[in-house]
C-alpha cells in the first residue's frame, strides 16, 4: 500500500464520521416523549393513531377550511363531544399544557411549529 500516512488517517476520519451518531448517543436512547393525557376529556378529535400521524396536516386543514373557505367552526368527536376547530380554542382546551403535551414530542422530533409566532399558547400552570 502506498501513501499509508495519508490514506489510513483519511479512512479513519471517514469511519468516524459514518459512525458519529453512534458515538454521539453513547448507547443512551435518551428521553422518550410521554405527552400528558388530558384530564378533562376521554377521546381526541380523531383516533389516536391518526392524530399521531397526521395532526400537523389536520390543524392546517382546519385553518384553511375555517378562515379561507368559510367552513364550520365547530364539530363533534366520534363520542359526541363538541369542540372548536381551532388551535387555541380547540386543541389547547383539552391539551391544556403546550410544554407537557405538544413540546414533549416536538423537542424529540426536532420540530418547532411557527404557529406560536402568532397564536398564544395557554399559560403553563407550573
Amino acid at each position, binding site marked *: 500500500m502506498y501513501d499509508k500516512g495519508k490514506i489510513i488517517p483519511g479512512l479513519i476520519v471517514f469511519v468516524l464520521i459514518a459512525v458519529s451518531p453512534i458515538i454521539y448517543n453513547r448507547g443512551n436512547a435518551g428521553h422518550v416523549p410521554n405527552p400528558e393525557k388530558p384530564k378533562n376529556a376521554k377521546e381526541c378529535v380523531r383516533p389516536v393513531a391518526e392524530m399521531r*400521524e397526521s395532526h400537523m396536516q389536520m390543524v392546517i386543514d382546519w385553518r384553511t377550511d375555517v378562515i379561507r373557505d368559510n367552513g364550520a367552526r365547530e364539530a363533534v368527536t366520534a363520542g359526541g363531544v363538541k369542540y372548536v376547530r381551532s388551535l387555541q380554542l380547540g386543541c389547547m382546551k383539552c391539551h391544556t399544557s403546550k410544554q407537557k403535551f405538544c413540546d414533549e414530542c416536538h423537542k424529540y422530533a426536532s*420540530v418547532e411549529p411557527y404557529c406560536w409566532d402568532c397564536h398564544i399558547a395557554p399559560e403553563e400552570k407550573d
Partner: protein
Amino acid sequence: MKVLQSVLLVLALVVVGFVVAIIPGGQALIGKVLPYLAFAVFLLFFIVKVVGWAKSPVPFRIPTTAGQEKSLPWVKQSRFDNPSTTGGVIVRMLLEVTMFRSLFRNTKAEMHDGPYLAHGSSKYLWLFALIFHYSFLVVVLRHLRLFLNPVPGLIQALGGADGFLQVLSPGLYISDLTIVLGLVLLFGRRLVRPQIRYISLVNDYFPLVLIFAIATSGILMRYIIRPDIINIKQLAVGLATFHPVIPGEMGTIFFVHLFLVCCLLVYFPFSKLMHMGGVFLSPTRNMANNNRMVHHDNPWNDPAIKPHSYAGYEDEFREVMKEAEIPVEKE
C-alpha cells in the same frame, strides 16, 4: 432499453421492500437487521476498495492541469490549478470537492457545416451536479434528527433554514424540491444529448433512479402518506444505540424507504458512487506537479537493477565504441 432496465430494477426493489414489510416478521427484518448488515457491507467494502486503489503504484506525477506550472521566477504560476506544494494541492482538492471545479471546465464538441469541429464550454453538468449533491447533503444531515437524541442545535437550525418558507404543515423543505430537480436534470442530461445517451450504461441510470425512488418515498411520507414519526425515531435511535425496537405502527412506506436506502448502501461500494472516496485518490487532483524539483522513483523498478549512467556505459563499451569509430568523451 437501459433506462427501462434501470427503472424495472428499482421497481422490483420497491416491490420486494413492500412485500417483506407486509409479511409477519418482515418489518423486524428490514427495521432491525438489514440496516446493520447494509451499513457493515458499506463500511467494509468502502475500505477494501480504497485500500485496493492505494495498492496501485503511481510512477510519476501526472500534471494534467489547467494552469501554468511553476517555472522561471518571472512566469506567473497558477498556484491552485497547477500546484507545486502540498498546500496548493489541499486548496485544489478542497475546491474540487466543494465546488466541482473540474466539472466547471467541461466542454462540448460539435460538428458544423463545413465541416468543422467546434469546441465550447458546457456548464450544465456542473450546475446539475451541484444542485443534486448539495441537496442530498442537506437531506442526509437533516435526517440526523431521527438518529440523535437530543437533537443538536445545528441540525435543528439546518431544518429551520431549509423550511424557512413556512408553507404547508409539516413545513416544506426546499431541499426536497431541489433534490428531485437535480435528479431529474441529471437524468435528463443523459437522455437528451445523443452522445451522452450513447455512452450511458445501466449502472449510470440505476443509481439516479434508485435515489429518485428513495427521495420520492421520503417526500410521500412527509407530505402525503404520513407514518408515525415518533415511533420511527425510536427505531432509528434504537439502531444507533444497538437496541433496535419496533415500538408500534410505522407504515409500510417507511419500510420501503428504509429498504431502498439499505440497497443503496450495499450497492455503493461496488459502483461508480465510490467517486465519493475516489475523488481523494485521483492522481490528477492529489499530486503536486513537482516533477522538475523532486526525484520520483518508479515504484515497480527492480531494486537489483542499478542505475546505469552514460559514463558507466562508456566505461563498459569504450573499446568497442572506438573500434566502431563512435566518438567517446573520455579517451
